[in-house]
C-alpha cells in the first residue's frame, strides 16, 4: 500500500540480560496509513512499548538489538539509521508522548526551556520566534495563561496539565507521526476523557497519523480506526475497529473484550483470562496463547499458527483455518 506512512515488517528484537538473550518481539508486521489512528493493544509485557521505542530508535543501546526485519517510515528504511540521522527524525517527524507525565518532564528546567528544545534542534528559529511558537502550541492544547506557564516548573502543574505539556512538546515540530504510549493511563478518569478528546482534535487539525499504545479497550473504541492486538511479542489479530468489537476472531481478543467492565450491568463476576503472559524465555513451540486459551486443541500446542486473512481482518489462530474462514 503506497499510502502507508509507517510499515513494520517482520520485526524481531533481542534483549540481552547477562548471558541470556530473549526475544520480546518476534516477527511483528503492521502498517499505519496516513491520517490513521492505529491502536496497539495488549497486556503488560506483550511488547507494545518495546515496539514503539524501536520506532523511535530509543531501544537501550547496549542491551537490545533489532535482529531482523524493517521499520519503514515514509518509504525509507530507518531500522539501522545512524544516531545522528535518527536524531533529525525524533521530535521532528516522529514524536512521542509517554505514559508518566509526572516524571517525564525535567524537574529543574522551566516548561518554556523544555518546550524550546525540539525547535532549537530541528528548526532554524530565533529565540523570540521559538517563544511565540511555544505559547502558540500551549494555547492549542488548552493550557490557560501560557505566557506565565512557560516560566513555571513541572512540579507547579497538575498531572493533566503536564500531559498537555507533553502533548504540546510532541506537537511543536508538526510531526507526521505521533506515538502515544499509554497517554492517559496515569491520569484521573475525568482528565483522561479531556486528554483523549484533545488528542483527537489535534490529530485532525494537524493531519497527523497516530499510533496509540494502550491496554484500555475503552480508549481504543473511542479513538482508533484500526487495531493491532499484541500478545507475548507477536501480533495475534489486526482488524478495523468495529469489526474487532463485533467479531473478534482470536480467542485472546475475545478474552480482552469480555474482561471489559460494562457500564450498565453488573456482572456476577468480572471475566478474566486465566494465567499470565508467558515470559519471552518460556515460549517454545505452538501458539503463544495456547496455554491460556479456552478453545485450544492439540494442534495449538504443536504448531505455530500462520496469519489467516479474511479480507483485511487478520488473525493468528488455528481456528481460522477453514476455507470460508468461519469459526468452528
Amino acid at each position, binding site marked *: 500500500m503506497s499510502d502507508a506512512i509507517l510499515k513494520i515488517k517482520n520485526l524481531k528484537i533481542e534483549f540481552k540480560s547477562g548471558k541470556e538473550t530473549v526475544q520480546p518481539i518476534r516477527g511483528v508486521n503492521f502498517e499505519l496509513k496516513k491520517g490513521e489512528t492505529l491502536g496497539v493493544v495488549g497486556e503488560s509485557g506483550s511488547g507494545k512499548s518495546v515496539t514503539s521505542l524501536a520506532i*523511535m530508535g*530509543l531501544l537501550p543501546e*547496549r542491551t537490545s538489538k533489532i535482529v531482523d526485519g524493517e521499520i519503514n517510515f515514509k518509504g525509507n528504511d530507518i531500522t539501522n539509521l545512524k*544516531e545522528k540521522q535518527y*536524531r*533529525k*527524525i*525524533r*521530535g*521532528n517527524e516522529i*514524536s*512521542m508522548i*509517554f505514559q*508518566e507525565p509526572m*516524571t*517525564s*518532564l*525535567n*524537574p*529543574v*528546567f522551566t516548561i518554556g526551556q*523544555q518546550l524550546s*528544545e*525540539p525547535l532549537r*534542534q*530541528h528548526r532554524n528559529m530565533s529565540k523570540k520566534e521559538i517563544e511565540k511558537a511555544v505559547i502558540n502550541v500551549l494555547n492549542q492544547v488548552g493550557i490557560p495563561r501560557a505566557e506565565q506557564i512557560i516560566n513555571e*516548573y513541572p*512540579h*507547579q502543574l497538575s498531572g493533566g496539565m503536564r500531559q498537555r505539556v*507533553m502533548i504540546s*512538546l510532541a506537537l511543536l515540530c508538526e510531526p507526521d507521526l505521533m506515538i502515544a504510549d499509554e497517554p492517559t493511563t496515569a491520569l484521573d478518569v475525568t482528565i483522561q476523557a479531556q486528554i483523549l478528546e484533545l488528542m483527537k482534535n489535534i490529530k485532525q487539525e494537524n493531519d497527523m497519523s497516530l499510533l496509540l499504545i494502550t491496554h484500555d479497550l475503552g480508549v481504543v473504541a473511542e479513538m482508533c480506526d484500526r487495531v493491532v492486538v499484541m500478545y507475548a511479542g507477536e501480533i495475534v489479530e489486526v482488524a478495523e475497529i468495529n469489526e474487532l468489537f463485533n467479531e473478534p476472531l482470536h480467542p485472546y481478543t475475545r478474552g480482552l473484550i469480555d474482561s471489559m467492565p460494562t457500564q450498565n450491568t453488573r456482572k456476577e463476576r468480572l471475566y478474566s483470562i486465566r494465567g499470565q503472559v508467558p515470559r519471552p524465555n518460556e515460549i517454545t513451540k505452538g501458539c503463544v496463547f495456547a496455554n491460556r486459551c479456552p478453545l485450544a486443541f492439540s494442534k495449538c500446542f504443536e504448531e505455530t499458527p500462520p496469519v489467516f486473512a479474511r479480507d483485511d481482518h487478520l488473525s493468528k489462530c488455528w481456528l481460522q483455518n477453514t476455507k470460508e474462514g468461519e469459526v468452528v
Partner: protein
Amino acid sequence: MLDFVIKRFLQVIVVVFLALTVVFFLIRLAGDPTTLFLPPDAPREQIEEYRELLGYNRPLYVQYGDFMYNAIQGDFGESLRSQEDALGIVLDRLPATFQLAITSLILALFIAIPLGVLSAYKRNTVFDRIGVGLTVVGQAVPSFWLGLILIFLFAAQLQLLPSGGGGTPVHMILPTLTLAAYSVARFTRFTRSAMLDVLQKDYIRTAKASGVPTMRLIMRYALRNSLIPIITLVALDLGVLLGGAVITEAVFSWPGVGRLLWQSLMNRDFPIVLAGVFIIALIYAIINFVADILYAYVNPQIRVK
C-alpha cells in the same frame, strides 16, 4: 525566604555554641596546661601560683561560664605561649588555609566531575572499570601516607619541589595534590552514581525523544539534576578543607589553621584551640548555609517551599 535565612542563622549559632562546649570539656581531659609551661621540677607552690594566675584552679563550670561570657564578646583569651590574642593568631593563619583549600577543591572538581560523567556515560567499559578502581584506591589511601610518598618522590628523589613550608606557589603543589586526591576520588564516585541514576529517568528519555544530541543531553539535562546531591558533598568537603586539613598541613609544614591547631593541641594552648574551633565551626556552618541556598537555586522544587 527571610524566614529561612533567620532560621538557618539561629542554627549556625547553635552549632558553633555546641562545638565550643564539647571541645572545651574534651580538651580538659588532656590535662592541665600549666605543667607543660613549667619545668618538670618546679615547686608545688609555683605551679599553684601559675594556676591561680591563669584561673585553672577554679571549678570547671566557673571556667566554662567565664570562657563563654568572654567568647560571646569575641575574646578567646591570650595564647598561653606567646601572650598574643588567640583569635588574632588563628585569623592570621586563615588565608594560608583558604588558599590551600580553595585550590585543591577547584582542582578536585575540575578533575572529578568530567571523570564521573564520562564514567557514567561509558559505564561498564574498561575506562569505567579503571576509573572506579582508581577512585576506590584514592579514597582508601590515607593523606599522611600519600603526602609522605609525594615528598619522597618529588622532594627527596627528584628534588623538583620543596618538601614543606609556605610562601611561593611552588610550595602549594604537593599539599594541594595530597588534599585533592581524596576529594577527587569522592566526587568522582558520587558524580558517577548520581549521573547513572539521572540517565535512567523518564525525562532524559523525553529529551532524547525530542532529538537532543547526546552531549547536550548529558551536559545540560542530566548534569544539572546530578549536581543536586553533589553540592551537599562539596559543601561537606569544603568545610573539612577550610577547617584546616590538619594532617596534610602538618606533613607539609603548611602555615595554616590546621597545623596551628595541631601544634596548639600538643602544647595544650587551650585559648588557641578554642579560638580555632570557633572559627572552624563557624566556617563549616556558614558553608552549609550557602549550600542550602545553592540547592534552592539548582532545584526549583525547594525554591517554592
